[in-house]
């Protein structure tokens, strides 16, 4: 298999893994967790913590 095809195959595998991870995260409430963290003021992030 030439280099280009190998790279494209790797990209495809990565895309599939990332979509699976996002789906698992969505169904296990991780989006809500991210939303909760994002909605709370992170004092450390702005240098006040």
């Amino acid at each position: 298999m030439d280099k280009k095809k190998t790279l494209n195959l790797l990209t495809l595998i990565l895309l599939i893994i990332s979509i699976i991870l996002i789906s698992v995260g969505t169904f296990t409430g991780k989006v809500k967790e991210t939303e909760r963290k994002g909605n709370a003021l992170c004092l450390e992030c702005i240098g006040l913590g």
Partner: protein
Amino acid sequence: MDKRRKITQFITTLVYNPFLTNLFKGKLHTGRSKGVCVPGLNCYSCPAAAGSCPLGSLQQNLGNLKKGVNTYVVGSLLLFAALFGRFVCGWLCPFGLLQELLYKIPFPKCVKRFKYLGWLKYVMLVVFVIALPIVISIEKGMGYPAFCKYICPQGTIGGLFLVGFNETLRSQAHLTFILKFVILIGILLCSASIFRPFCRFICPLGAIYGLFNKIALIRIKHDKTTCTNCGACSRACPMRLNPVTECNHADCIRCGKCISKCPERSLSFTGKK
């Protein structure tokens, strides 16, 4: 292409930060959109921010591993990396845009590559984004976003508005805030002379995306059969790379300047003839 890139950068900055009036109210935007990770470095504690910063979310998660890995944040990071690589840095990052605008100021330019200083961003990634949040959260029993707390200049910009327009927060601005403010000013001053110093030497998010530059869907391809080795591409590269030998290098932000300057059209984005 540069004009198209600038327009994209301005649009993404506005899409990431649409709640501009919040800047002057000294309060955060809250809502469901904060559950969405944006590709670029954009602090979720900036009053105007609509989404979440993937780097901040990752540190929050690493500081709280008892609840399990946040597969959503890790998956989002992988998705952006697999699709774009450091194209995100060149086209979709608001802090990158700010540095580029400052580089336009007429000031003596430093064109050195600083090859070894480029490794610093990997140190930042390992120490401040991965190791410290895990180790200190185990000791303290609470989340510890070390990169956000001590370094991230993007969060300081949001912090300046919060401190400026919120009296309660102003009373909490002590030594760490001053340290972060000094880092921000240092980076902004350097940006007038060095092209994107934060992206080249410090940004851990760029370090993550850079690891995937060679396999990302959007890549730069080099046609050896038409290339005359004239050197126009390496002279045009603001990251001081040689696209002929370092095509898709981890530091390449896909700005496309080498593509525009190539007289033989030997360089192009994948998917384009």
